[in-house]
Structures are given as structure tokens and as C-alpha cells.
């Protein structure tokens, strides 16, 4: 690992240290109780009946045989759900679609719109009986015409997935005069790219246990990124919000797949109905079949540049596939629209973006959230431009990179440092000397890809996070924060921050997370926001607490206020005299000085923006660059990534070990996306519902990704940190595509880059590519 030293504005003891996370050892030693590990006396087992058809009317739904089976406690259909619809707000639309509230149906009500859509729920004494009951539910379907491609969905006369039409959302950006700029450009690169639907494929499929507690509160302990879904469960059941509690244990991977509700509402319905604890664990097949996935996009880029490589215009058309329900599609499309021009100055830009309903599996949040899909477009274009003009790939990017103070095409000014070219140079240099091809039929090449990713949520959501920090009477520290830890070290980073400010060792900090009843709400663990938001909330709470403690300690030490420090579990005077924190706490208690504080952080907020008119959309953006070296077998089309250097500006690495983990994991996920993974859906039927057909890379398929951490010190998070959760997944696919052109001279424009696609591009196959929906 290489790490750029940045002069610290204050000496730091704990922040910046690669200390092992407190949760890591527990996980390795199998002590962590994940959602599915929870057991309750008298617990029932839930199961879901899912639609066999992607588009059909339910003519008959008869649960009587299932309900009569011995050991079956409940069978529920849409009719048994008090409020069967959840709503998604889609604010600030700029098109004929208008402000929209999109509908998510919990259990199919008369119509199924995708294969795997939940139709009925069962709770039974054992998983075997639950499964038997699911199979005993009689459903008679009348297949209906469906539409399985977003372009076809928008054509006149297409079958309507929902009554209001198939156009779910549309955004546009216009700045400058694109038409004229493209006419006057010395070079125009016009290419259409396609990226595929993929799955989050986390280790831990969706799972949870729900029970009605002794106080009548419905308690749901589930694998989720969003404990605030207690509100959705309450809405569905028609009970007050304060009668539902969601607890998120340590999560075995989220990546956006647990941002929408998964098992929570179903568990709530079954536990509320049976008044018994209910456990529901989705199988890998269910998870791959029907849980919302990453949006496929068609991206057409027309990029104009001057002879020296300076960009003069981008005209971009985006079309995404929302699948059968809205979920977060409109927002995913917004991220795509805002970032489509990449980390570059583009004086004239037009982005036209649409997302359409189809009868495919729904798509929603996934790491990178629309912004990551754009990297293939803008970075392939930059590479083609460099090649056309005979420029070095780093140089062409350096001539166009955004700088602090520049405006994005959407009109938002960048307020922090843009270290994208520094990252590009470090990644590119990190590849070292070129490797020679192994055989005469192998070729070796290199590729670079940079990216821009927002961190924090859209400003008009008025995002905030709260966290409680307290010091116990013995001097130990407690943090309470409603933060789901999805494996990124979210909890331990907060401990490190509290430890830094309060001068105790990280092991002296206990943290309680992700309980909507007992921990202050912190918002979602999504959008690369938790370190930024909750980090700032913990920092604010800890600093306020430190100020109070120091005041009391200064009196005890008879030292000048402002000169006393907290370190090693004590308050220390300038002359070295010290008083233990426990002693200071006693004094606080005697004086009635509060020994805890609730910190709240409000992100920069703003009104909804009409993108076409422009304005601020996100709190801030972050930047990175990946460089890869690949070897292509020119007889088979096989691509092996030999080296991969991934460099990101994280502002400040609170825990460099966790940062490296995020970079390596993100790069691995990005390579899987680039080379292997695809949810294959044919006429609405998912053909990849096992890990034998849905190909997630293994350690044997990936290079040893080398992370390079840049610390500009200029981020909006605690100690100048930026986020690092989502950014590293963006660049790998484009970097590999660029490297393949470097190696072989052929340009791959469609993901995943399968050996067959490469073989076709190399002209190895005579027959035309098979038609694709």
C-alpha cells in the first residue's frame, strides 16, 4: 500500500491508524449472530410463494389446501395486508411525467408483473412444512403479453406494465450550445455502450426474525441497511410508527440490495398475525430470482473535442430498465444524469435520461447507484479520444479534469479538492514495468479509468444524522448510533473518532448500533454517507462532551482552561499532572454536569432542483482512478487481469485498513461486473438463479488489487474525510475495456466482457452475434 502523507492540521493519536476492527475477530471466530442466526422459543418459519410468470393475471388464488396442512400457522395474500402498497417519492421531475409517487405492491393483487413477484406468505412450524404449504397454494395464472426491453416498453402500443404508462422517470441537463459545439469540434466520437443487469450477491441473503414483544411493540431483527423501514412496516400494518422497532445486526453485505425493504414487512405481517416469533430466510435462488438488482443501461455518447484533446461537448442519451416496480429507479437515474459527463469540464453538455418499466426483475439501489454505470461511457470515450489524437491516456484526462471551484454541467460548483489526476498518475505509475505476453497468441495491454461519485444524499432530502456519546463513571466511553454496519467497518470507525476526541483507547469505547428504538437515528447506510454523516455526528457529540469534561478537569487540576488535554484515559495538565477520567466523571456528577451528549449533523440542504435549469444536487463528490494490465488470448478471447492499481482520494483515512478493504472489495466487485456477472433474463425469465449460473468472481479469478490511498484532507466528513463505500466499484470495467483495446486494437462496448464478446470483436467467429432482447 502506498499512502500519501498530508500535513495534519492537528496531531492525531487514533484516527489514521490501521487498527483491527472490533467486529472482524468476532466474524472470523463465528461469534457474530447474523440475522438468520437468531432463535426464539416457539419460532415459526416464513416462506414466500412467488410468481412463476413475468406477466400474468391471477385468475384464482386458493390457499385452503395450504392452510389446512398440519403445522401451518398462517397463509396470507394481498387481501390480508392492511395496506398493501408502499410509495416512493420521485421529486423534481423535469418532464411530462411530473412529480410522481410510485407504487410498490407488497403481495401481488390480481396481477403479477415479474417472475418471482411475491404472491402469498406462509408461516409454519418448520421450514419443510412452510415449503410444502407454499407448494400447496393453488394459483391459476392467465399469462399476459409482457415487455422485456426498455426501448420496446417506450414504443407506441407496448403492453403497459402499470396503468400510467411505461415511462417511469426522465431527467435532462442542458448547458451551452451542444449542437454548435459538436459541429465545430475537430473530433467527434460517437459510440453506444450497453451495461447489464447484475446482482448484489452478498454472502448473506435476506433474513430476519420478528416478534411482538411483551410491551406490544413489533420487533424485527433483520439484515437491512435502513432501520428507518420501521415506518414502512407500521404503514403497512396500519399501526402507529412508534409501535414498530427494527434492529439491524451486523450485516453480511448490503451493497444497496438491503436499502429497500426485503423481509421486514413480510416478517411484520406474519408475526403480527400469528402473535408468534417468525423467522424468514430467503434462499440464494430467491435472492437471485427476485430481489431488486442493478439497472442495465444503454448509453449513447457523442463526445466532441478540439485537436489538443480539450472537450468541447458531450451529448448523452441514457435509457435504463426499471423492471416491474419503481423502487429507487428515478433517483438512480438522477445520479446517472448528474455524473454522466464524468470528472471533466464540459462547456456544452446535454444529457437526456429515461428509465422505463418492463416485466423484468425490478432494479434499484446498488453500490455506485447509477453513477457507476456511466464510467463505461465517459471513460471509454476519453480513451478513444486519446487514441484518435495520439495522446497519452493520463494527459488527455489532465487537460480536461475538473478543479475545485469548477461547475459540473448540472451547474453545481465543486467545493473541495479534485484529486482525480493525481489519482490517475499514481495508479498508472503503479503498474510498473510492462509484462511480456506468455505466448505468441497472447497480447498484453493497459487501461486507465477515472470516476466521479457523489457522497451523501441529494441535498433536497435534508439529510441528517444523530449520535449519542457518553462517558461512564469508570471513564469508559459509550457510543449509541442508529447505524447499520454492513461490513465496511461503519461502527468501528465511529469508535475510532470517539476514541480520538476523548483520549481513550479504541478498546475502551463500546458502541451500540442500529436499533430504531434505542439508538439515535442516523439514516441509511447507503450513498457513501455513514462515515460522512454519522462520523460528523459522533465528532460533534464527542467534541461537546470533551469541552465540558475539560472545563471540570481544569478546575480539578487547577490548570488554565484550554491547556488541559484528554489522553490515555486521563485529563493532563501542561505540566504533566493528570487526573483519571473516572475522577473527572465523579466531579461532573457532583456538579451536575451532563456526561453525555446527542450530536446532530445536518448536511448541506437545498430545494429540489430542476436539473435542466441547474443547481446544487449533492453535498459533495469524490474521485478516483484505476489502472489495469490485462492479457488477452487472441485465439479464445479470454481476458486475464494481471495487475490492478486502484487509487482514491478519501480525504482522510480514519482507518486505512478499512479503506484498503473498501478499495479492494470495490475493485473486485467492479471486475466481476466488467468480466463475469450478468443476470440473464429472457422474456422475463431469469436464467441465472444459482451461483453456478450467476458468475461471481472467486479469489482465483482476480488479481491482487493494490490500493493507493490519497489523503487530500479536503472532504466534508470528520477530519476532512470523504466517503469510500461506493467509489471503487466504478472504474474497473472501463479500465479493462480500455486495456483490451490497448492490447488488441478492438473496442468492447458491451458488458460483461465475456471471452465470446472479445472473440467476436477479434473476428474469430463467423456467425453474427446472437440477437439480444
Amino acid at each position, binding site marked *: 500500500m502506498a499512502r500519501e502523507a498530508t500535513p495534519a492540521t492537528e496531531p492525531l493519536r487514533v484516527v489514521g491508524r490501521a487498527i483491527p476492527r472490533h467486529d472482524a475477530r468476532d466474524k472470523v471466530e463465528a461469534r457474530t449472530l447474523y440475522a438468520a442466526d437468531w432463535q426464539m422459543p416457539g419460532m415459526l418459519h416464513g416462506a414466500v410463494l412467488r410468481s412463476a410468470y413475468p406477466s400474468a393475471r391471477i385468475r384464482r388464488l386458493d390457499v385452503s389446501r395450504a392452510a389446512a396442512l398440519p403445522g401451518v400457522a398462517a397463509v396470507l395474500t394481498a387481501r390480508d395486508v392492511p395496506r398493501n402498497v408502499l410509495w416512493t417519492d420521485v421529486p423534481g421531475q423535469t418532464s411530462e411525467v411530473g412529480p410522481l409517487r410510485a407504487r410498490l405492491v407488497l403481495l401481488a393483487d390480481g396481477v403479477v408483473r415479474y417472475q418471482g413477484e411475491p404472491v402469498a406468505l406462509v408461516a409454519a412450524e418448520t421450514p*419443510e412444512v412452510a415449503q410444502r404449504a407454499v407448494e400447496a397454494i393453488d394459483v391459476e395464472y392467465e399469462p399476459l403479453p409482457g415487455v422485456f426491453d426498455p426501448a420496446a416498453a417506450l414504443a407506441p402500443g407496448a403492453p403497459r406494465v402499470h396503468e400510467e404508462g411505461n415511462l417511469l422517470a426522465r431527467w435532462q441537463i442542458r448547458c451551452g450550445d451542444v449542437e454548435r459545439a459538436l459541429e465545430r469540434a475537430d473530433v467527434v466520437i460517437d459510440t453506444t455502450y450497453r451495461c447489464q443487469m447484475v446482482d448484489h450477491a452478498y454472502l448473506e441473503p435476506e433474513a430476519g426474525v420478528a416478534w411482538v414483544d411483551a410491551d406490544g411493540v413489533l420487533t424485527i431483527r433483520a439484515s437491512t441497511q435502513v432501520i428507518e423501514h420501521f415506518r414502512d412496516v407500521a404503514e403497512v400494518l396500519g399501526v402507529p410508527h412508534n409501535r414498530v422497532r427494527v434492529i439491524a445486526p451486523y450485516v453480511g453485505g448490503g451493497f444497496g440490495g438491503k436499502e429497500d425493504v426485503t423481509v421486514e414487512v413480510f416478517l411484520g405481517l406474519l408475526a403480527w398475525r400469528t402473535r408468534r416469533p417468525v423467522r424468514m430466510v430467503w434462499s440464494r435462488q430467491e435472492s437471485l430470482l427476485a430481489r431488486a438488482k442493478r439497472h442495465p443501461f444503454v448509453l449513447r455518447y457523442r463526445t466532441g473535442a478540439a485537436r489538443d484533446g480539450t472537450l468541447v461537448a458531450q451529448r448523452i442519451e441514457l435509457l435504463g430498465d426499471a423492471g416491474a416496480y419503481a423502487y429507487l429507479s428515478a433517483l438512480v437515474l438522477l445520479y446517472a444524469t448528474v455524473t454522466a459527463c464524468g470528472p471533466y469540464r464540459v462547456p456544452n453538455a446535454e444529457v437526456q435520461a429515461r428509465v422505463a418499466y418492463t416485466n423484468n426483475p425490478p432494479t434499484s439501489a446498488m453500490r455506485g447507484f447509477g453513477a457507476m454505470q456511466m464510467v463505461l461511457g465517459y471513460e471509454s470515450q476519453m480513451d478513444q479520444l486519446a487514441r484518435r489524437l495520439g495522446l497519452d491516456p493520463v494527459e488527455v484526462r489532465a487537460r480536461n479534469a475538473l478543479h475545485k471551484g469548477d461547475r459540473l454541467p448540472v451547474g453545481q460548483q465543486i467545493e473541495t479538492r479534485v484529486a482525480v489526476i493525481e489519482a490517475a498518475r499514481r495508479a498508472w505509475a503503479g503498474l510498473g514495468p510492462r509484462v511480456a505476453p506468455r505466448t505468441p497468441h497472447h497480447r498484453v495491454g493497459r487501461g486507465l479509468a477515472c470516476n466521479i461519485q457523489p457522497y451523501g444524499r441529494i441535498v433536497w432530502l435534508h439529510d441528517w444524522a444523530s449520535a449519542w456519546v457518553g462517558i461512564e463513571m469508570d471513564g469508559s466511553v459509550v457510543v449509541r448510533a442508529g447505524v447499520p454496519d454492513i461490513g465496511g467497518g461503519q461502527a468501528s470507525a465511529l469508535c475510532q473518532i470517539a476514541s480520538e476526541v476523548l483520549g481513550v483507547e479504541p478498546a475502551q469505547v463500546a458502541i451500540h448500533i442500529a436499533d430504531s428504538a434505542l439508538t439515535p437515528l442516523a439514516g441509511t447506510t447507503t450513498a457513501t454517507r455513514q462515515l460522512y454523516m454519522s462520523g460528523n455526528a459522533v465528532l460533534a457529540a464527542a467534541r461537546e462532551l470533551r469541552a465540558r469534561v475539560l472545563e471540570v478537569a481544569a478546575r480539578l487540576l487547577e490548570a488554565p482552561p484550554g491547556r488541559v488535554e484528554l489522553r490515555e484515559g486521563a485529563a493532563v495538565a501542561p505540566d504533566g499532572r493528570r487526573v483519571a477520567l473516572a475522577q473527572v466523571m465523579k466531579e461532573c456528577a457532583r456538579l451536575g454536569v451532563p456526561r453525555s451528549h446527542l450530536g446532530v449533523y445536518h448536511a448541506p440542504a437545498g430545494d429540489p432542483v430542476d436539473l435542466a435549469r441547474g443547481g446544487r444536487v449533492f453535498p459533495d463528490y469524490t474521485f478516483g482512478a484505476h489502472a489495469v494490465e490485462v492479457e488477452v488470448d487472441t485465439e479464445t478471447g479470454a481476458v486475464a487481469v494481471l495487475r490492478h492499481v486502484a487509487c482514491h482520494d478519501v480525504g482522510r483515512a480514519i482507518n486505512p485498513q478499512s479503506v484498503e478493504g473498501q478499495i479492494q472489495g470495490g475493485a473486485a466487485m467492479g471486475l466481476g461486473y466488467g468480466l*463475469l456477472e450478468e443476470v440473464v433474463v429472457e422474456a422475463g425469465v431469469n*436464467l441465472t438463479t444459482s451461483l453456478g449460473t450467476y458468475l461471481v468472481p*472467486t479469489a*482465483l479469478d482476480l488479481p491482487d488489487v493494490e490500493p493507493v490511498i490519497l489523503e487530500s484532507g479536503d472532504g466534508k466528513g470528520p477530519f476532512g474525510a470523504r466517503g469510500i463505500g461506493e467509489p471503487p466499484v466504478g472504474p474497473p470495467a472501463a479500465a479493462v475495456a480500455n486495456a483490451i483495446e490497448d492490447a488488441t486494437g478492438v473496442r468492447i462496448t458491451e458488458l460483461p466482457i465475456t*471471452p*465470446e464478446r472479445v472473440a467476436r470483436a477479434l473476428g*474469430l467467429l463467423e456467425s453474427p452475434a446472437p440477437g439480444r432482447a
Partner: protein
Amino acid sequence: MPAVPFDYHAPATLAEAVSLLGSLGEDAKPLAGGQSLLPLLTLRLVRPRAVVDLHRLDELRAVRRDGGTLEVGALVRHRALERGEGPLVLCPLLQEAAALIGNVRVRALGTIGGSLAHADPAAELPAAVRALDGTILVQGAAGARAIPAEEFFAGLLTTALRPDELLTAVRLPLPGPRTGHAVEEFSRRAGDFAIVAAFAVVQLDAAGRVAAARVALAGCGPTPRRLDAVERALVGLAPSEEEIRRVVAHRPLEIEPDSDVHASAAYRRHLAGVLTVRALARAAAGARAFGP
């Protein structure tokens, strides 16, 4: 997902197992290493009324060399093949093929008999046994049979085994002098079933010309395929890579690959050509290394 409930039997002898299969008929499935059957059970793709677990049948674990042939018991695990334990070291092609099966956890449990009886067209061992001209030994209520591999693989996941018969062993001729072998497998991901794999055996005469060549392909049709025309055309040639490439390019490959989510039929056909050349060239090089 839990499997659909079934009756479980664990017979102590081969005779008992065969008699059980005879009485249970088509409703029973024999269980060896479980690397194919258990996933099929838990995915509920098969729903047998009974499972006959063979793990107590130690008589099916033997490996014997008998003159020029090797007899490998049905319950010999992939890991033993891969490591060339005991006389298995005499069949290096089997060793190379077994090393490509799944991952080490799969190889530690999976058995040669299970793999042959399951007859997955993309699996390594059926094609390897075809390339080796093996014979499958089976035992049924009506007695024992020896079935040439060519006749054993009858179709997609289908063999010549009758419901009351158990695969007991496979008999393989040991390689003669100046014989080389090679396995060239192409998969999307390490440890996966092959998209296409080529298994080649080349024997040279004292003058360095091809005395006999055999090549079998996995992933190119419902059963493992031998390339008879290529094999015949190679006999008598000095097998340089260019010569092999020329022979393969000018013979139609007698294969009928399918398209699936991993590859189209056209791409499989292309790979079959590339991998056949590579496997034959490496096998020939291995044979030459024996010297005249």
C-alpha cells in the same frame, strides 16, 4: 431450501444395494459423494422417494492394476485421482482431468462413479474416460455387465445404466510407450464446469509419427464426443503444431454444441477447434519427450 423428504437406506454390501435398487426401481437414487445429487435435492430439481447411500460399500473403493489395465472402483474420490494415489499414478490423464474438477472441497467428496453415472456433458471425467477408451463395469440384479464408454453415455444426463444397476468400477487401458496426453479446458471461472474441454492422447511410433491419436471433447453435445475424423487423419503424420492445426482445420468437427447462458453454440464450436489443437499438440510433445 430443504429437500423434499425421502427414505434413506445405507446398505452394507453391494449385493444388498443392488437388491434395494431392484425393489425400489425408478423412485430411488444412489448417493455416492453427493456433489451432484445433493444440490439437485436441495434445489428440488429431483424428488426421489428414496436415497440409497453407498458410503458403506468399501468394495467399491479399490484400485487394481491388472497387466495393461487399471480398474478404478466407483467410490474412488476425485482427490485420489488428482494426487495419483497408488496405481492411479499410472494414468496421468485422469490425474490432470480430476485436478480441474470444481474446487478442493468438491474433489474431496466427489467420486469417479458418481461423475460418470451423472453424465454431465460438461464434466471432466466422462470425456476423459472416453479419450482413454475406458469400459464401465456395472452390477445389476441380473448380473454384471461391461459397457464400453462409447455406449455408456447415451444422452444428456443419461447413461446405459438400468434403474436396478450400480456402476461399480471403470476399467482403463494403461498408456503404452511413447504416449503423451493433455487436457485443455476453457471455463469462464476457475473451478467451473467446462465451456469446452479437450482430452487428447497421442501415441507415436519409433519414427516419431502418430501411431494412434484419440481426442474427446466435453461441452460439445449431450455426451462426450470423440473426433474420429481428426484421429484417423493424424495417423502416420509427424505431429507438429502446424500439422495438427492443418488437420483440425480441414476436418469438420463431429460435434453438436448447444447455446446456454455462458456461451453460444458457435463460440463453443470455435473453442473446440482451438482446444483440440492445443491438447493434441501438447500430447504429441509429451509423447516425443519419451524419446524414440
